[in-house]
């Protein structure tokens, strides 16, 4: 069952008028309040001034005439294709076409053998990347965990190398600095057969957390973002305010501020290089007012992530956002309902590239093998909803009803044979629909145990060799690869 890139948009938390109101309000924020910056991006600020922005250098404040924003945002591509090493995994991000995958930078994993929590390693990154490779409904790999067993200076190249050696799906990750990005581009170019080949089919992309909400440019990440633009490497413009702490408490206020941050970021990118492939990266979140931590599993996160796609769609830029986070510490019922709700809402909203939607627990801190399997099932169900109900003559089945006739049954009609593997979602095997007797015979396993067994089986499969041997040798000669 092929459930990638289906058209969402069935759920629109904002009316068309509300979308316009919010968009106008965002333009007003940029025109009146503006954004601030710190030392180190004088060239970027100068570029903005040369193109119409008003700079107050004493207050380090930038305001943008609406005309400038509208002109620059119009230059951003309406479609961004994120490629896989294998073309069957190419993602066409446009309109309200939905893709869902992993995300995050977790530092803990629930060990699949001991059940205990421990720090994540490079080997864990490799293992979960292999799971993602084999789970059909997880459409892409955003590096889900940090390798805590390697030194910071080895992070970027090793992350990308590990992911690319384990999956042929698209690989995305943030990088620490410009050198990190350039190293990764160099390594990926070796795999692609040259920088031009990589730029033609970028099977890697990056994330730049360019905005520190509210309304402040992060120097380092803005520079990384612009470097990606210049290299024609797709970049997600991440900004992630939390309602109540780094954006207004209200959902509308949070969405409006976030949209303003995105408009400013897109403007910087398009001035840096017109037509640069970028993803609108607004990730609306909520502060837990009891702790000021992140409430990833809240249903309102699902609502706001659907709404933010409406805003990105309004300016015709494909978007990157979040769903499937849970505040639960283990793959339990809470994890199940929080993930199902936010993922269903974000996908029905039509978000183009929904990360965080597989594998994560404890907000963004922990991953677990079994959770990837369970989330693959949740994503599959979400995407099935997007497919909708076909009502053409074949699916209406009037002829079949007539031929079976009153009182008959449909079990063995050719029509049943034709459609039985397509009309309903079949699942990856984790969902139990057996009789109680059969279930007891098989050990009375709960969802988590069944998912662990599936993960174990997938990891026992032969390891892939996505990076050809001679290229692998060259990469290891050039970089300090620790896997």
């Amino acid at each position, binding site marked *: 069952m092929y459930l990638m890139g289906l058209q969402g948009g069935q759920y629109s938390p904002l009316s068309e008028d509300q979308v316009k109101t919010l968009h106008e309000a965002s333009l007003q924020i940029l025109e009146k309040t503006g954004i601030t910056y710190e030392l180190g991006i004088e060239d970027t600020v100068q570029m903005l001034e040369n193109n119409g922005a008003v700079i107050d250098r004493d207050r380090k404040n930038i305001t943008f005439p609406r005309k400038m924003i509208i002109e620059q945002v119009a230059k951003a591509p309406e479609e961004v294709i994120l490629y896989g090493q294998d073309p069957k995994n190419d993602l066409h991000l446009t309109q309200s076409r939905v893709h869902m995958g992993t995300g995050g*930078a*977790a530092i803990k994993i629930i060990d699949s053998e001991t059940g205990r929590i421990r720090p994540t390693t490079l080997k864990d990154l490799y293992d979960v990347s292999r799971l993602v490779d084999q789970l059909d409904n997880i459409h892409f790999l955003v590096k889900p965990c940090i390798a805590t067993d390697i030194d910071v200076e080895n992070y970027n190249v090793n992350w990308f190398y590990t992911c690319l050696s384990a999956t042929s799906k698209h690989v995305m990750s943030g990088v620490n600095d410009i050198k990190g990005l350039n190293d990764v581009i160099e390594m990926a170019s070796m795999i692609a057969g040259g920088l031009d080949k990589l730029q033609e089919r970028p099977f890697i992309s990056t994330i730049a957390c360019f905005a*520190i909400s509210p309304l402040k440019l992060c120097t380092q990440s803005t520079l990384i973002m612009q470097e990606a633009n210049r290299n024609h490497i797709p970049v997600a413009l991440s900004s992630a305010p939390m309602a*109540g702490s*780094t954006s207004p408490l209200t959902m509308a206020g949070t969405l409006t501020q976030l949209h303003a941050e995105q408009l400013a970021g897109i403007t910087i990118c398009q001035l840096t290089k017109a037509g640069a492939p970028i993803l609108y990266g607004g990730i609306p979140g909520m502060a837990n007012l*009891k*702790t*000021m931590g*992140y409430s990833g599993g809240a249903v309102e996160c699902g609502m706001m992530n659907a709404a933010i796609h409406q805003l990105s769609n309004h300016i015709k830029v494909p978007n990157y956002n979040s769903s499937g986070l849970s505040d639960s510490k283990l793959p339990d019922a809470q994890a199940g309902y929080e993930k199902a709700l936010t993922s269903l809402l974000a996908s029905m909203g039509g978000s183009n590239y929904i990360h965080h939607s597989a594998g994560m627990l404890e907000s963004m801190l922990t991953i677990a093998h079994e959770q990837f399997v369970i989330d693959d099932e949740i994503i599959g169900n979400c995407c099935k909803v997007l497919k909708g109900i076909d009502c053409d003559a074949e699916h209406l089945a009037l002829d079949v009803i007539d031929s079976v006739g009153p009182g008959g049954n449909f079990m063995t009609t050719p029509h049943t044979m034709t459609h039985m593997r397509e009309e309903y979602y079949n699942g990856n095997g984790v969902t139990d629909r057996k009789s109680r007797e059969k279930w007891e015979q098989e050990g009375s396993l709960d969802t988590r145990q069944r998912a662990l067994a599936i993960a174990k089986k997938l990891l026992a499969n032969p390891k892939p060799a996505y990076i050809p041997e001679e290229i692998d040798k060259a990469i290891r000669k050039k970089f300090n690869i620790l896997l």
Partner: protein
Amino acid sequence: MTDFNEIKDSLVSLDDQRLLHLVNDALGKKIPASDILNKGLIAGIDIVGEKMENEDMFIPEVLMAAQIMAKGVEILKPLLGDDETSARGRVVIGTVKGDLHDIGKNLVAMMMESAGLAVHNLGVDIAPEEFVAQIKEKNANILCLSALLTTTMPMMKQTIDAVVESGLRDQVKIMIGGAPVTQVFADDIGADAFASDAGSAAKAAKILAN
């Protein structure tokens, strides 16, 4: 006034008008300023800290309480002796290099100030050598390090290592905190204490300072 329940209560219920009225009233009755501070305001903010730990109060309410308390302290300050205002704990606090997050760290700083400690908040993206310089300059006895990003946690260890190399390790107790930080991590990198929220951070700092 034989007890300070009303002052404590006005602080916990965020009633700034009533609190200021009660503080002035108490001064009028010749109650020592140091008693009003310690038995009224600080005792009240301790209750706020407990309520925060138990999640009975939202953080914005805690912040509001700290702001109201500061107004009360403002009235008392000219009337307090030097020894009463000189804090037992001298805290240097900052977010480690590479990390730009400051909300949680500022919350901790505010709660520590409310608990009567002298707090020097260095801000974000602070290099290890800057922490070392500030410990010397402020003669600090507590160092608090914050990190929100999983990628900047290693910088906490590098900062502690720099303090050890500088020879100042015996002078300061080191506390760490931030969303991804755990007690196990604190033990691993040689910190003296870990706190999971601002209320318990202030409490722990008071104990370490004594």
